[in-house]
């Protein structure tokens, strides 16, 4: 009781010094929480964008398509009723849509740009993806249309507007070159920058006839589920079901399988956060060692008197350790408080990367455009607060023992 009382009062004996060290710890905690919130928000939005605009929750295709994406037209299949029924039986199933992806060069005037053409069945495509919600000009496809919906960046590069004519130059299944021509029906500005530049949407039946394949032939089935986390587990069970009981040669990938780079980025992002936090905490730890050494030098006669009174070395270590932990608690609380304010702002107002860095997200391959919103991560508050207190406590131990082992005579007479 008295040891804690002495320790806590000593904490405020040099309030300026206490505040500086607590401030360093607070900054570390604040920075860590904000970075975690920001990274989590960025990942959340990235995964959502990939799911909503590109991969859906599940994608079913021939295994060769995932292994060799060079020529998707080599890996076509026709989804049978029993396959579709099996998919619909999945718990959490919402909708499915067929997709026929192939590569082409888009020509407009003298400009040419390589694109991925996504041939889609407009009605079911709308049930799985949100592309159509982000049209800034024109309309989305109708079944049988020969038109094309493109992204705003591609429209800018090729100087295209709704109503302009386009030409798609592609290689047929047999290898000969062919073209598709038509009108630009709509321009979309999605939050997924990749879709605004490198992908164009065309009606599946129109594309099939141009490609010379059957209208039922596709190379992927995209499936929307109610929950993205359970979708990862469902992908395995569905693949077992399709390849096992139905004896079909299919591979089922979840959104996570096609987000390798993002998953790696998430891991690296976390490592980077922990590295930066460790560096700042190291500065805090040095500060705490400094505080304990300075305090013990200032209070050397006091330590001597306590030892004369019969206080054990362990009890003296306890006083300094409580004091240092107090520093950790103050720093941790200030940091967590500031972190809560920062997180609230990030969650509600967000952070516009483009304001600072322009279109850097496109270059970095982050599938987010515009404002990034944070995500509340209560566990990071607990983890980083505990980390601050633990670092403070551990870094105080050696100088505390050094102080506690002082010879009582030397300490009392300040030799």
């Amino acid at each position: 009781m008295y040891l804690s009382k002495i320790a806590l009062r000593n904490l405020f004996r040099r309030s300026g010094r206490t505040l500086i060290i607590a401030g360093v710890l607070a900054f570390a905690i604040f920075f860590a929480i904000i970075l975690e919130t920001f990274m989590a928000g960025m990942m959340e939005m990235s995964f959502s964008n990939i799911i909503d605009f590109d991969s859906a929750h599940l994608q079913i295709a021939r295994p060769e398509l995932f292994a060799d994406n060079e020529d998707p037209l080599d890996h076509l299949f026709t989804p049978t009723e029993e396959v579709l029924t099996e998919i619909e039986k999945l718990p959490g199933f919402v909708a499915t849509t067929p997709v026929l992806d192939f590569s082409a060069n888009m020509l407009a005037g003298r400009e040419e740009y390589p694109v991925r053409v996504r041939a889609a069945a407009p009605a079911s495509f709308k049930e799985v993806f949100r592309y159509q919600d982000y049209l800034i000009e024109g309309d989305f496809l109708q079944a049988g249309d020969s038109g094309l919906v493109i992204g705003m960046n591609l429209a800018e590069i090729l100087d295209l507007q709704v109503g302009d004519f386009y030409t798609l130059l592609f290689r047929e299944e047999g290898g000969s070159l062919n073209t598709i021509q038509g009108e630009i029906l709509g321009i979309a500005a999605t939050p997924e920058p990749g879709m605004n530049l490198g992908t164009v949407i065309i009606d599946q039946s129109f594309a099939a006839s141009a490609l010379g394949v059957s209208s039922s032939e596709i190379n992927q089935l995209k499936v929307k589920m109610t929950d993205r986390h359970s979708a990862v587990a469902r992908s395995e069970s569905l693949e077992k079901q399709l390849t096992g009981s139905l004896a079909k040669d299919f591979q089922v990938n979840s959104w996570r399988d096609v987000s390798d780079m993002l998953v790696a980025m998430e891991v690296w992002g976390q490592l980077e956060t922990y590295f930066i936090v460790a560096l700042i905490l190291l500065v805090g730890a040095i500060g705490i060692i400094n505080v304990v050494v300075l305090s013990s030098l200032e209070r050397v006669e006091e330590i001597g008197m306590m030892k004369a009174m019969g206080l054990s070395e362990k009890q003296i270590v306890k006083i300094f350790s409580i004091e240092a932990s107090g520093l950790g608690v103050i720093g941790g609380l200030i940091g967590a408080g500031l972190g809560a304010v920062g997180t609230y702002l990030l969650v509600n107002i967000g952070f516009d990367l483009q304001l600072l860095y322009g279109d850097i997200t496109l270059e970095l391959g982050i599938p987010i455009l515009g404002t990034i919103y944070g995500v509340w991560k209560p566990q990071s508050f607990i983890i980083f607060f505990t980390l601050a207190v633990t670092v403070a406590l551990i870094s105080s131990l050696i100088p505390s023992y050094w102080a506690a082992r002082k010879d009582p005579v030397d300490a009392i007479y300040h030799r």
Partner: protein
Amino acid sequence: MLVVSLNSEKKINQKLENSVLVSLDSVKKTYEDGKISVRALRGIDLKIAEGEFTTVYGPSGSGKTTLLNLIGALDKPSEGQVKINGSIINELDRNGLALLRRDNIGFVFQSYNLIPVLTAYENVEFALKISSSNNGNPVRNSKERSAQILEQVGLGDMLDRRPNELSGGQKQRVAIARALVKEPRLVLADEPTANLDSKTSKEVLEIMLEMNSKLKTTFIFSTHDPMVMEYAGRLLEIRDGKITREERR
């Protein structure tokens, strides 16, 4: 007649032997300061009985403080043996010495050495709490006892003052109260009046004398101050690390 005298001296010595609290036997203390050896004590033989009010005096550097540090179990001798309340301090480790000090000895220093973040009352109660926290036996009525002893040293109305709000004399009274509150068998006071004016010194000494007679606490002082010597029941002069004169009053 001679036989009777010898017998009574024997009885006195026997009685003294039984009540000896501190005993030093051929004690030497040498400090190593780099290549130089400083012989602070050069062979001290001394017995102090319970309830004695002893003053050690002598010039600066004569070895007074070193002697008190050994008697206070703050230090160990280089040679010889120091026994306090039956415990030979040469044989104790740091924790053993700490326990011996905690259970038997109270200290009063020239520079008071109060804990600045605690009030006068808390400084005194802390001494009691250390004992209870270490041996697991809670001290009864610690609050009353602490307040009472501060009342006895004339600080009943200053319980909540911190050391920086007290005068030198008041601080020394708190230090005395702190030393006495756990009712130790021995109180060591190293030049307790050195920083005090003569009036305050007198008051402080009166308090200690009163405690000596009331509680039968053994007091050992080191001092330069002739006034302190006037109060002593036993005077020990120390010069160049040896006791050169002894006087009982």
